[in-house]
C-alpha cells in the first residue's frame, strides 16, 4: 500500500493489533519479569525477520547483516532495533503529544487531532544508530557490538512535518533547539528519561517528521507506536520514539543523553583513551556505503559477468559517486549510482558489473564520496564510544573455474 494513502482504518487496525500484543505481553510478563505496561522482548522478536541478529535482550538490540539489506526500501521486519530503555505499551486512543517551551501557543494533540490539523507527508529516510559498525573498531569500544554493517535502515515514513507543527505553535525569539521526549520507561524509577535535542535548522527541515507510519502501516510498537520523531540522516537517537512532548529551547538540552552519550571528541584521541573534556554532539552521518550483494563467500564463475550491488548514503548533502575495487584499493572503478525519487535522505542503490577473470578467493571493496568531497576512509578515527564507523565495506567471494 502507498504510504501516502494511509487511512483511518489502518489506525484502527493498528489498535486491534496492539490489543493482541498486549494480551501476549501479560502472558509473558511472568517469565520475562518486565515491568507492567511494557512489551517483552520475545513478543517484539516474533514480529521481526528471521534474518535479524540479536545482540542483546535487555535492552533489545538487533539488526540484519549487509547481504540481508538488499532492498531499495528497508522492509519493516528488517529495520534495526535499538532502545535505551524498555518498550512501552501505549494506547493510541489516549495518546497525546504536547508542544511546549519557547512557543507563542502551547499546543496539545490527540492522534486524531494531529492527523486532521496538518497535511500528511511521506518521505523515505535513513535512520542509523550512532554506534552502527562499532565492532569494526579496534580496540573494541563500549556499547552494543553492532556489526560493521549493522544498525541502519531506510524505510518510508508517514506523518506531518515538525516544521508545520512548530510554525502553528509560533516560535518565540531565541528558539534554537527542539527536544523530543518519549514514554519509554526504565527498570527503575530513577532512570533518566531519554531526551535529545536537535538544532532549529534540522527541526525545520522539510524531511524532519512527527511520524505515525512506517512503510504505509502504523508504526510497530518497537519503532515508536503510535508516534515518533524522524530526523533522517542523523544518528538514530535524535528520532525520539513514543513521542509525547516536544520542547522548544534556547540552547541544546542539558542531560546525560546529550553530554555523556552520543558525543565524539572534538579532537581525535589515541585509541583506547577515555573521552576528552571537549566533545561535540553527534548529528548527521558521514558518507557511507555497503555491498548488499553478493553475500560473503558467494560462489561466482570465472568468465561470467557478475554484479556488485549495494547502497550508499550520507547524513547531509548528497552521495556524489561510489567506487568499487577488486584489488584491495589499488585501483577503483566507478559504479553506476541510481537516483532516489523518494527523499533526499534516502539511500541510493549502486551497481557495478564485472567479469571475474581468474578462479580463487576475491575481495570486493566499496567506498562512496559525497558532494562536499568527503570519501569513506579505509579505517575511520577511533573514538571512545565507537560512533560513526564508515570504513570501506569489504566482501570476500569465491570465483570458481
Amino acid at each position, binding site marked *: 500500500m502507498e504510504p501516502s494513502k494511509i487511512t483511518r482504518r489502518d489506525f484502527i487496525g493498528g489498535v486491534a493489533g496492539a490489543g493482541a500484543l498486549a494480551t501476549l505481553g501479560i502472558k509473558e510478563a*511472568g*517469565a*520475562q*519479569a518486565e*515491568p*507492567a*505496561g511494557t512489551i517483552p*522482548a520475545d513478543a517484539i522478536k516474533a514480529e521481526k525477520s528471521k534474518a535479524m541478529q540479536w545482540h*542483546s*535482550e*535487555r*535492552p533489545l538490540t538487533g539488526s540484519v547483516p549487509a547481504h540481508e539489506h538488499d532492498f531499495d526500501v528497508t522492509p519493516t521486519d528488517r529495520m534495526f532495533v535499538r532502545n*535505551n*530503555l524498555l518498550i512501552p505499551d501505549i494506547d493510541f486512543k489516549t495518546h497525546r503529544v504536547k508542544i511546549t517551551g519557547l512557543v507563542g501557543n502551547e499546543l496539545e494533540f490527540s492522534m486524531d487531532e494531529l492527523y486532521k490539523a496538518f497535511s500528511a507527508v511521506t518521505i523515505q529516510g535513513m535512520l542509523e544508530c550512532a554506534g552502527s559498525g562499532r565492532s569494526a573498531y579496534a*580496540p*573494541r*569500544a*563500549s*556499547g*552494543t*557490538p553492532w556489526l560493521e554493517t549493522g544498525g541502519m535502515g531506510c524505510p518510508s515514513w508517514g506523518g506531518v512535518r515538525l516544521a508545520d507543527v512548530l510554525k502553528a505553535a509560533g516560535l518565540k525569539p531565541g528558539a534554537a533547539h527542539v527536544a523530543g521526549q518519549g514514554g519509554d*520507561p*526504565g*527498570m*527503575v*524509577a*530513577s*532512570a*533518566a528519561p531519554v531526551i535529545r535535542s536537535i538544532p532549529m535548522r534540522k527541526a525545520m527541515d522539510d524531511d524532519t517528521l512527527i511520524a505515525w507510519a512506517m512503510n504505509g502501516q502504523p508504526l510497530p510498537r518497537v519503532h515508536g507506536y503510535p508516534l515518533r520523531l524522524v530526523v533522517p540522516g542523523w544518528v538514530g537517537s535524535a528520532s525520539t520514539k513514543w513521542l509525547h512532548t516536544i520542547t522548544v529551547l534556547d540552547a541544546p538540552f542539558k542531560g*546525560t543523553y546529550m553530554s*555523556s*552519550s552520543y558525543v565524539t571528541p572534538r579532537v581525535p584521541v589515541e585509541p*583506547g*583513551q*577515555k*573521552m576528552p573534556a571537549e566533545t561535540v554532539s553527534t548529528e548527521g552521518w558521514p558518507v557511507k556505503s555497503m555491498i548488499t550483494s553478493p553475500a560473503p563467500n558467494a560462489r561466482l564463475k570465472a568468465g561470467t559477468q557478475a554484479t556488485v550491488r549495494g547502497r550508499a548514503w550520507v547524513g547531509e548533502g548528497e552521495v556524489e559517486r561510489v567506487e568499487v575495487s577488486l584489488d584491495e584499493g589499488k585501483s577503483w572503478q566507478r559504479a553506476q549510482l541510481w537516483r532516489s525519487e523518494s527523499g533526499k535522505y534516502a539511500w541510493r542503490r549502486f551497481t557495478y558489473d564485472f567479469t571475474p577473470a581468474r578462479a580463487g578467493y576475491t575481495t570486493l571493496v566499496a567506498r562512496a564520496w559525497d558532494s562536499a568531497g568527503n570519501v569513506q576512509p579505509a579505517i575511520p578515527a577511533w573514538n*571512545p564510544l565507537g560512533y560513526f564507523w564508515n570504513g570501506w565495506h569489504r566482501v570476500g567471494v569465491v570465483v570458481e573455474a
Partner: protein
Amino acid sequence: MRLSVFLLFGIFTTGGFAQDHLIPGPGSTLTENKCRICHELQHIQRSPLSRGEWADNLKNMKERGTPMTEAEMAVILDYLAVYYNRDKPAPAPSPDTLAGGGDPMQRLLEANGCTGCHAPDRKVVGPAFREIAAKYAGDASAAARLAQKIRQGGQGAWGNVPMPPNPGLSDPDLQSVVSWLLKK
C-alpha cells in the same frame, strides 16, 4: 508447593540471567547486581575497557539513573578495571571478599541492590523496610507474596515506580530476606 514450582519456573525461563555471572573477585557480586538491573552482563564481558573508560562508563550509568552510591561506584570501578581491563589479562577467579564484612543481612541487601531504593526507616525510591513490614503484619500469606514480589519485581502496591526483578537471588537468600523483613 505451588509457589516453589512457580519460582523454579521463573528462574529457568529468565533467558539465561540466572546463570549469567562475571568473573568472581572482590566486588563482583555488587557489580553484577547493579549492572543487571537494566542490562545483561554480556555488555561488560564482551568489551573490556581501560580504567578511564570504565570510570566514564560508570559516571554515565549513574547519570542514567542506576541506584548506586559513590562508595559502591568506587568498588565497581576497582573490580571492572582489574577483571575487565582491555590491556591486562584478568586475574584468576577468587572469592568476592568485599561481599563479606559487617552485618550479613546488610551485606545481602547491599549485594542485591536492595539498599539502592530501600532504607530501614524512610522512603527512598521505594518504601522503607519498616513500612513493608507494617503493611504485611498479621497476614498469613505475607511470606509467599513477599517472596514472589522480590523475585519477580512488581509495580502498583506502593505507587507506579516499578521494582526490578531479582532472578539472581538464591532461594535460601530470598527466604532470609523475607523472614528478616517480616520481623522488622
